[in-house]
């Protein structure tokens, strides 16, 4: 009798396993299509706006504020949510603003609470637009013909206007200034941005990869920047590790990674004692450790790799 019960239990277990393995995503389906289309427009009071203390005198809220967390972020920005989620976003608040006299020329503010200045810089840098104009209104900031993007403390802020005009540009800058007057900055949270050599650096090209820089799983907190040497371009990189020993280990691990992916180590000329250089199908990779820093050059011709490598090495000698 006992064996019979065990057999029945095993059969039930097998059935449950079989059903579970055929996952039907429809069981998670919310049968409502999203925000009800017939829902009347929400009423709101400008005083309730989370942005009210940042508003210049000539701007007023045009819509009710919206708030999204990590679970609902894609309801607002769809496929771009992944970028923010990987950088630790906590919350997004949005609201449309306009001059009461000209509501057609509206702008929308996207206020991302990234939980920390490094996270905010990460999403700022990786999305930086080409041909943008740098601004000094915040920790990091730039503008384009219809938009303004900046980092202040743990916040990453986008202001996107429905039209490109001098008036909206002035309003966006006024908002950014008011915001920065009310929220403390934290530019020193990303000192590596200053450790990359400024000579030959392409303006606005500094990016922070929080994880897996260049597809290498151990390259976290990796700062990269574009460099121009005449016609040649290269990418310099830098990451600071907790100890000199860990920096040395990371150089060794990255070297192994390059070799595993087809890289061939070559003898260095000018950089022989402090760097390793690899030929990766015609493009060169250079890497070295100096103190707690691991730095190098990514995807360059050999001369440029050694030239930029030397610049990095000297710079890190001045900024141990």
């Amino acid at each position, binding site marked *: 009798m006992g064996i019979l019960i065990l057999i029945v239990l095993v059969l039930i277990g097998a059935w449950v396993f079989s059903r579970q393995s055929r996952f039907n995503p429809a069981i998670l389906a919310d049968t409502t299509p*999203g*925000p009800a*289309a017939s829902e009347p427009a929400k009423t709101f009071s400008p005083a309730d706006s989370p942005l009210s203390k940042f508003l210049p005198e000539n701007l007023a809220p045009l819509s009710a504020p919206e708030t999204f967390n990590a679970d609902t972020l894609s309801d607002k920005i769809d496929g*771009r*949510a992944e970028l923010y989620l990987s950088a630790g976003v906590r919350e997004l608040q949005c609201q449309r603003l306009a001059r009461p006299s000209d509501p057609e020329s509206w702008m929308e503010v996207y206020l991302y609470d990234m939980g920390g200045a490094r996270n905010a810089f990460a999403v700022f840098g990786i999305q930086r*637009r080409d041909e*943008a104009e740098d601004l000094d209104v915040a920790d990091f900031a730039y503008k384009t013909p219809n*938009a303004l993007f900046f980092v202040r403390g743990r916040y990453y802020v986008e202001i996107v206007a429905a039209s490109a005009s001098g008036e909206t540009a002035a309003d966006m800058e006024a908002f950014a200034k008011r915001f920065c007057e009310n929220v403390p900055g934290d530019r020193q949270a990303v000192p590596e941005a200053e450790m990359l050599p400024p000579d030959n650096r392409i303006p606005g090209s500094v990016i922070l990869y929080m994880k897996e820089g260049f597809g290498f799983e151990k390259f976290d907190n990796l700062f990269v920047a574009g460099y121009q040497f005449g016609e040649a371009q290269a990418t310099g990189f830098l990451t600071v590790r907790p100890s000199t020993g860990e920096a040395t280990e990371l150089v060794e691990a990255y070297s192994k990674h390059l070799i595993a992916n087809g890289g061939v180590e070559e003898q260095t000329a000018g950089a022989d004692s402090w760097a390793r250089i690899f030929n990766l199908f015609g493009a060169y990779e250079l890497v070295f450790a100096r103190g707690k820093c691991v730095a190098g050059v990514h995807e360059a011709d050999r001369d440029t790799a050694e030239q930029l490598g030397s610049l990095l090495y000297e710079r890190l000698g001045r900024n141990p």
Partner: protein
Amino acid sequence: MSEAENTTRRDFLLRGAKAAAAIAAAGFAARTFRDPAGPPAVSRSEPLVGLPDFSIPEQAGKLAIATGANRVRTLRAAMDALGGMGKFVERGDRVILKINAGFSTPPILSATTHPDLVSEVVRLCLAAGASAVMVMDNPVNDPVSSFELSGIAGAARAAGAAVILPQANLFRPVTLPGGEFIREWPFFSLPLEGATKLIGLAPVKSHNRAGASMILKNWYGLLGGRRNVFHQDINGIVKELAQLVKPTLVILDGTTAMMTNGPTGGSLSDLKPTNTMIAGTDPVAADAFGATLLDMSADDLPYIAKAAAAGAGTANYELLNPIRIEA
């Protein structure tokens, strides 16, 4: 002494009569409410297997590529090259335009189908004899805001089309036979079930998750429910959408392409004038050509190869001998 022992003959008869009356009333009520026909064989909540096929076999494999900066002019040129809208829309047709109204953003950001394209396609359909043209999408953002701020609602209505917002009662579970993802999933299908033609209208955009968002990815806007779970296998779901949705015509607007920071963009500097309008009947081929406007190839977008392998079209658009026109 018990209650039964106290019951008189008169009480017994009275109780018996009351019980008989109650039974008779219940029987009468049951007879009154009985539906001898029973429920209909298919209710609105029952899953739909597949969607109507809106394609026209005689028009299969057509592709026209018009170049020029004016999207109305390039659209007309592309449609003329395909023989005119009359080849696709007949008198009395009820036409659905599946546009991209995904975001409550202004037209200048090119995150949504341009209102000028919407209004011109509506006009062409009505001129071809359509009895009704309806514009629909299930946006990512608030539906009313998305349709209004994108300029699509105004353009559609001004040109004579109706706007269908994603009301809950217009959704129905749909299953793609053999599908891995689309199994009893809520679909914005009721408007399609009442239509005779379906035209897809999409902009050319980069997409942080899918690589690009064009015609095939735009069918995503027919899904309801917690559809962002599909982002875990975006290529798989787009392939299944390509299998499921068989349009009459697709129009891919590459007048301005969103090269970076898609699908929402936000800055004019994310955009590039690519001055191209693609019209045709093969959604996979349209997307394969559209990829070139984003400085990609079809090989860079895995869902294109998957859709082609599933029989939804061809990734090698040159095999269709596309008609190229300058407008």
